[in-house]
């Protein structure tokens, strides 16, 4: 057993298939102890620290921070007996023990036998390809797709219970890696004659025999089962049959399309429209979450958006006066503070806009507290942290909370708890110089306010055209909960506050 051991990413939370490396806490050459935290990994469920499984010296780190790694892939290797002299070269190590890039090799095998003689098969869930898991049967004629492997595929060795004498990885590895690529039991190998497209004539008459999951697969792949000859028992159609049919059906079609494009484009400018001019960005993290939330919200809550253009000159003047007061001397305040205050006071007058449509319980949940979300553009993407129970804060506390929220968001340190539980949100598109927009509701919220840019604008003021500070508010609301009348009244109140904050404060509170 080699003294260099590889640690593969385990399934950290019951059924996960991947995790993102957040931070490496060790580097190559570090001496580490058993259970010392080595890496932070974020999964769909949680961000966790993984403790070292063995003490020793780190010899290799397989993936940099920021990489999404599949469960079962090696992430770090550790020399568990660094005192025993020099380690064989990296090349020989890779050849002898790892070869993770070879697709057919089960990553779980690479660690070799674990302490106690247990075969270190893949932790968590198995490898993805069904063929790798399937053990060959004795005495059954091989199915066309898996025909020809002269030696048992590596999976057979891995799936078998641990033999009494455990072969060392060094002795077991070469046979597994030795067969050239064509003999690997890949389900779809266009080169194989057996994979020729099935003819309708080959199918015996009568109803199609196929198990429900196979039927679903065929439907997903757009394959007509009546056009396939089954190779399973009693002529039933197997998963492999469907996949093979899909592979042979799609391969020629793609070629045709590509050729036709090329023929059309080639004479004109010879411009290239291929992968060399495309950037592929993995959909993950905040982008993925944003997309999921937006889709969930846009297609469940019927959105209505209303606009109101208001003269906020008095708000801007109040803001200036506020800045000169000693209580506000050391805090940065912006018109957003007044918009937030206007929303909080208007919510008090119209609590229904601060509610949630709960389809699960068939209820509208009206909240007595306002967790005020502020959309923030960060390097990692859009996040909407919220100020908890903002309705209870004084204006000064609200100003502090807004400043803290924005700074935390910009530094990328917003904790998940700050991003959950929002009840009403504001998106300040004005900071981008935009007049207004039709925002999409954060899931679970009944309304969101877009605050546009404040511009000097000709405006009718006291019967005369004057240059006034004017902005546009856009309010999107969930029409299941909020009717046009309520939405309009609420927006009118927010606008009314901004037109004359002092009068609104005196008359409302």
């Amino acid at each position: 057993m080699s003294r260099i051991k590889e640690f593969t990413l385990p399934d950290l939370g019951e059924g996960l298939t991947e995790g993102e490396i957040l931070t490496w806490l060790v580097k190559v050459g570090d001496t580490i102890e058993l259970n010392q935290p080595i890496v932070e990994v974020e999964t769909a469920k949680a961000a966790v620290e993984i403790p070292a499984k063995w003490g020793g010296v780190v010899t290799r780190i397989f993936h940099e921070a920021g990489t999404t790694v599949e469960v079962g892939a090696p992430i770090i290797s550790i020399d568990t007996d660094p005192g025993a002299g020099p380690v064989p070269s990296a090349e020989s190590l890779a050849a002898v023990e790892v070869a993770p890039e070879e697709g057919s090799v089960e990553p779980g095998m690479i660690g070799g036998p674990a302490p106690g003689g247990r075969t270190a098969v893949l932790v968590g869930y198995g490898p993805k390809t069904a063929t790798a898991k399937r053990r060959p049967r004795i005495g059954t004629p091989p199915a066309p797709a898996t025909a020809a492997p002269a030696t048992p595929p590596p999976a057979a060795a891995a799936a078998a219970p641990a033999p009494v004498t455990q072969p060392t990885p060094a002795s077991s590895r070469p046979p597994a890696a030795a067969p050239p690529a064509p003999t690997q039991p890949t389900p779809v190998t266009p080169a194989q004659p057996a994979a020729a497209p099935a003819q309708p004539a080959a199918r015996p008459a009568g109803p199609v025999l196929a198990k429900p999951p196979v039927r679903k697969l065929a439907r997903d792949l757009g394959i007509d089962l009546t056009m396939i000859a089954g190779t399973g028992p009693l002529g039933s159609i197997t998963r492999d049959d469907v996949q093979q049919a899909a592979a042979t059906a799609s391969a020629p079609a793609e070629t045709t399309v590509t050729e036709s494009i090329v023929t059309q484009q080639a004479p004109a400018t010879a411009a290239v429209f291929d992968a060399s001019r495309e950037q592929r960005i993995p959909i993950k993290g905040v982008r993925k979450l944003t997309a999921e939330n937006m889709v969930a919200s846009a297609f469940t809550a019927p959105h209505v958006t209303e606009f109101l253009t208001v003269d906020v000159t008095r708000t801007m003047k109040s803001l200036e006066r506020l800045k000169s007061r000693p209580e506000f001397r050391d805090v940065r305040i912006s018109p957003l503070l007044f918009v937030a205050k206007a929303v909080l006071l208007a919510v008090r007058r119209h609590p229904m806009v601060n509610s949630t449509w709960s389809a699960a319980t068939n209820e509208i949940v009206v909240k007595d507290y306002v967790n005020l979300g502020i959309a923030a553009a960060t390097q990692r993407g859009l996040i909407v942290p919220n100020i908890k129970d903002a309705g209870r804060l004084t204006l000064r506390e609200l100003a502090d909370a807004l400043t803290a929220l924005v700074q935390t968001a910009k530094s990328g340190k917003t904790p998940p708890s700050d991003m959950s539980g929002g009840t009403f949100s504001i998106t300040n598109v004005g900071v981008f110089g935009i007049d207004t927009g039709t925002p999409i509701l954060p899931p679970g919220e009944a309304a969101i306010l877009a605050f546009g840019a404040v511009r000097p604008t000709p405006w009718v003021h006291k019967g005369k055209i004057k240059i006034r500070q004017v902005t546009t508010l856009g309010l999107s609301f969930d029409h299941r909960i909020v009717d046009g009348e309520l939405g309009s009244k609420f927006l009118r109140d927010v606008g009314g506050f901004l037109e004359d904050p002092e009068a609104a404060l005196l008359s409302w509170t």
Partner: protein
Amino acid sequence: MANGESPVGADAPAGGFVQLLTPDGERIDSVTTADGVTYSVDFTDGEYRELYQDLVTVRRLDAEATALQRQGELGIWASLLGQEAAQVGSGRALRPQDMAFPTYREHGVLYTRGIDPIMPFGLFRGVDQGGWDANKYKFNGYTIVIGSQTLHATGYAMGVTMDGKTGTPDGEAVIAYFGDGATSQGEVNESFVWAGVFHAPMVFFCQNNQYAISEPLERQTRIPLYRRAAGFGFPGVRIDGNDVLASYAVTRAALDQARNGQGPTLIEAYTYRMGAHTSSDDPTRYRIASEVESWKVKDPISRLKAFLTKQQLADDTYFAEVDESARKLALDLRERVLAMPDPQPVTMFDHVYPNGSPELDQQRAQFAAYEASFEGSTH
């Protein structure tokens, strides 16, 4: 026992709780509740040290299990971090004849019953079903279904009465463990009804760790949980769940009530789950760091350590020895967990009927033949 107000400890929630050791390690001689019941402990120096060793060992083993899960060696782990005192105190209060019905988090109770801590690891590693001999260990199987074990415990306790094993100072008693979330389950409320009506020799030990996974206590109840007992007609008492002495004293008294034929008691151990619900959970998504910090100062181990130091019952050498001994136990546990053999698929037929059945035997034979049809099979 108190159904009204309990005495107020320095850091007690509204309504108070029984506390015999403050977070600073100050010993409170005895506590008398509003109902006139007095609780105290009378430990020797050695017994105090043993409790400390229990707490440290239980926490260390738990940490090792969490690490093993992160290393892919356990499918899941439910950590008891923060709840050591509630478990060790109540577990040590059990007498050999008493029967315990745990949830999946009662590793500390299991340890204090003198059971090899490796016993539940087959379940969490997925190599057995967690089916040990409950009668042999006087410790029922870890119950995953929330609250169902309270019914099993109550039925068992009613059986103890029918066997005529209650009503004497040496009688038998039964303890059922559950959490704050379980109090919202029908089973728990039904078991309260049955235990109350039939005067079962029961102690309902609720570790209120403030969260049912992510659901906070305020969504479980409008009143302190221990007061629920009054509606079912038996006493309820709240203890400082981070105080191993209070946990011991109150559980011992409640068990003695039960074994003497005085009926059930509900104990609410007011504590905090310092870690995640299980290794699949991320508590930072639903609770704030300042709340966790506020509980760190109430740590069950540090207060006992402070007490031992102040009373000069133990010194740094002793503490280092305890740590080292716990470390060795943890390493031993690790090695034995890694050495657990994977089960043969055919063993799934072994625990269906005690003596098998013709149909099952047929299924077993068919399955064995199917398994043997693969190349490389050892069957």
